[in-house]
């Protein structure tokens, strides 16, 4: 990797403040991948809006992209604030980070409606199956039977965010693991190129409260049960494809709206990344086996995003000037006349 990216920026320009998370926390690994993905994609840091809710995971936007504006909102409501920001300034790259408690417990309603609305944003869930910041209670993604640190098993079935997103019509759904850098970085890069809401559910072990024997979110458990669906490569639009090492085996290229390409090198046969029902079935099957199926699970590049649906003007709403957005005195008179 070269020391500077396409914009001539060093990776330092994509870093953030010092992390205050526990040493070894999965979230910190994801932070690294976000930094790398933004660097690789040559994103202008000042054009990113970093959004989050509340939780250890939601603190991480302070630890990457310090040149970007960030908004650490309230618990479970990142999606709505992000939607507002995305609509107010359509030129921004909205990058949302949330936790499993933040998204699947208190925030599941906003998650569902966000996915339906399809405002352009990357929505990363740093999923450890517990509430880290409040000291380890189960969240709504905790697997049935997974044991808490005190040995108490979780009794309620988990919400799987990936199948839920696919069922709700989300056009980009990925799953990964904080311990799988080769997969996660290109996945985030691809998500950054997607024109609508791109959801990535990343298993991210909480080393303090959910990394013990009996937990299905411990680093070791996930390492052993991670089934990578395919090998992923992301080729930015500015990189000529022939500069890329063509990986061995059969591969499919998917072109994104911004001209970049995702190269999927198949490991699982018969998996069609565009088939909604098949994706859901595959996820359900792997869950039933206690496995985590990771990779790009579903992609629909034809879906209209909210800007298109709304016919939003090209200029960011936030930049429109008084002349454009305050109608004239004559208009007021006309309107008033119609009430006379």
């Amino acid at each position, binding site marked *: 990797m070269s020391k500077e990216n396409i914009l001539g920026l060093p990776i330092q320009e994509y870093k953030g403040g010092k992390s205050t998370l526990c040493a070894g926390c999965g979230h910190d690994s994801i932070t690294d991948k976000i930094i790398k993905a933004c660097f690789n994609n040559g994103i202008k840091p000042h054009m990113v809006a970093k959004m989050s809710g509340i939780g250890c995971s939601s603190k991480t936007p302070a630890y990457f992209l310090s040149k970007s504006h960030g908004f650490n909102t309230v618990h479970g409501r990142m999606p709505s*604030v992000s939607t*507002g920001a995305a*609509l107010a300034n359509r030129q*921004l790259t909205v990058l949302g980070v949330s936790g499993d408690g933040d998204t699947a417990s208190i925030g599941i309603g906003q998650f569902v409606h966000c996915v339906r609305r399809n405002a352009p944003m990357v929505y990363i869930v740093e999923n450890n199956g517990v509430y880290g910041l409040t000291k380890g209670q189960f969240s709504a993604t905790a697997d049935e039977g997974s044991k808490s640190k005190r040995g108490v098993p979780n009794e309620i079935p988990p919400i799987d965010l990936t199948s839920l997103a696919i069922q709700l019509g989300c056009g980009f759904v990925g799953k990964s693991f904080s311990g799988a850098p080769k997969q996660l970085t290109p996945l985030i890069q691809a998500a950054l190129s997607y024109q609508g809401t791109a959801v990535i559910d990343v298993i991210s072990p909480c080393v303090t409260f959910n990394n013990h024997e009996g937990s299905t979110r411990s680093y070791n458990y996930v390492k052993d049960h991670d089934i990578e669906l395919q090998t992923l490569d992301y080729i930015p639009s500015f990189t000529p494809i022939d500069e890329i090492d063509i990986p061995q085996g059969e591969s499919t290229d998917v072109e994104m709206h911004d001209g970049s390409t995702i190269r999927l090198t198949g490991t699982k046969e018969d998996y069609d990344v565009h088939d909604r029902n098949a994706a859901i079935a595959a996820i359900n099957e792997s869950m039933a086996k206690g496995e985590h199926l990771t990779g790009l699970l579903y992609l629909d590049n034809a879906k209209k995003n909210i800007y298109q649906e709304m016919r939003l003007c090209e200029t960011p709403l936030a930049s429109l000037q008084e002349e454009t957005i*305050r109608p004239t005195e004559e208009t007021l008179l006309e309107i008033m006349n119609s009430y006379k």
Partner: protein
Amino acid sequence: MVSVGTANGSGSQSANLIIHRALFKMGLPVSGKNLFPSNIAGLPTWFLIRVTEQGYPAPADDTNIAILMNPDTWEKDLSKLKKGSVAIYNSDTRMPVERDDLILYDIPCSKIARGIDSKLAKLITNTVYVGALSEIIGIEQEAIVEALKHQFNNKQKAIELNLKAIDEGRNYIKENHKKNQPWKVERRDLTQGKMIVDGNQAGALGSLFGGVTFLAWYPITPSSSLAESLIGYLKQHREYVDGSKTYAVVQAEDELAAAGMVFGAGWAGSRSMTTTSGAGISLMTEFIGLGYYAEVPGVFWNIQRVGPSTGLPTRTQQSDINFCYKLGHGDSTHPVLLPATPKECFEFGWRSFDIAERFQTPTFVLSDLDLGMNPWISDDFEYPNKPFDRGKVLKEEDLNKVESWGRYRDVDGDGIPYRTLPGNPHPDSSYFTRGSGHDEDATYSEDPEVYERNMKRLAKKHEGLRAKMPQPKIEHSSGKSKIGLISYGTVHTAIEETIDILKEKNVEINYLRIRALPLSPKVNEFIDSHEEIFIIEQNRDAQMFNLIKEELDSSNIKKIKSCAYSDGMPMAASKISANITEKTQIKINKKS
């Protein structure tokens, strides 16, 4: 006062609006109050029409003419009529009217309607009473025709059909009821240049002319029509020729999401707003606290209805004043605008954005159902007299000029910091917004001193609002009176009449109308210069009275008395004046 009792969903609203507008077209400052149920069809609805030379907008005590169309309320409506009142009733409901002390007009509205068009009969049954009433009280046909055109947007077929119903209504009266009754209307010239508009339309227009670019909302009575009017105006006036929009409207999944979107858009630099009521405000509580502490602009219209809880969703009240003013856990206070008329809804509509952006804080506009959903005779709105105030936003070039910048520094000593917008390319522009503790440079901090300093700055900023919010208005001054009256919001519209009633009783009063919170020092001055002050408001717990106690000079507190009450109906002047004469300790000055 004319009271029309019908069933919801029977199309009576359009008949009533025709009467209302026809009277307006005759130059009469007519008041109209729609008392509708929280239901779509079938439950009782009343429409109160009042015509006075003075144009008193509040409802009167007595109904002079009752139009009885709804068998369910027939008896109760009748029983309320005083001797000598008029009752016009649909004789097809086959209810005999057994009061010989009334002046009775029966009319077979349903039969007449069926005679005109058996298929569309339902649509015009109510129009028949429009004709009957017109004939009885003397509404000019020309005015009726104008009103019809307006109501049906010049759609010829509908106009003709309704006109026929009106004519037959008139004829039936002419032919069958050659009696006299005391209430007649005559043309005047009192509505020249005025319009009929409701507060929600006015607020929507104000927002339009305030340059709103973002609206997120969730339907709730009585606020929905503000959002829906605004959507209509935006479509007409804020789209490019290619159909692309200079605004975004999101119907959110609930009020939490609506508030979140408002703050997201406000944070990113949009003039953003929502409109809600009752439970909607309660659900926004957490987000309002975030907006206050993180200092994000956003405009929040609350068209107040009757609480607590679901309460009476289609009745009016002023009971969220205190709640909105301090909304959120912890110490927090917000600017609140209190419009009293559609004209003020328009003005506060655009001004609210200036306040929200200048003070970087959630800003409430508290209207109510009476103001928002009833048709009002209004003076022309004034085109905004100043350009947008977008507040302290630093652009790239501004940052080039300053040596260093911190999001929450109090550079100007007014407690208001500077902000930058996402997308600003200057290398120093970024900052991190959070609802948790932060220092002057927006860095996370749990330091006790930093926390206290920040909170004191926020209090200072709030203090600054006192002088910058719309100031209270002395609406009536009779010189040396010792009694002062204070109100706000739509209660105002009953006060002019109250003053007249009291004058009759030789009680002179002065009257100040509060237009915003926090309270201006002028309220104190007003209290200072009187011996006794009555606070008139429409809630149970005397919310403004308590805020005045809280914020103002304690030496004045003994002077103030509360006349708070609410039963969900717009306040009547007679109740207010009775309340005052009962409570006053001051010997009534005989007029010289």
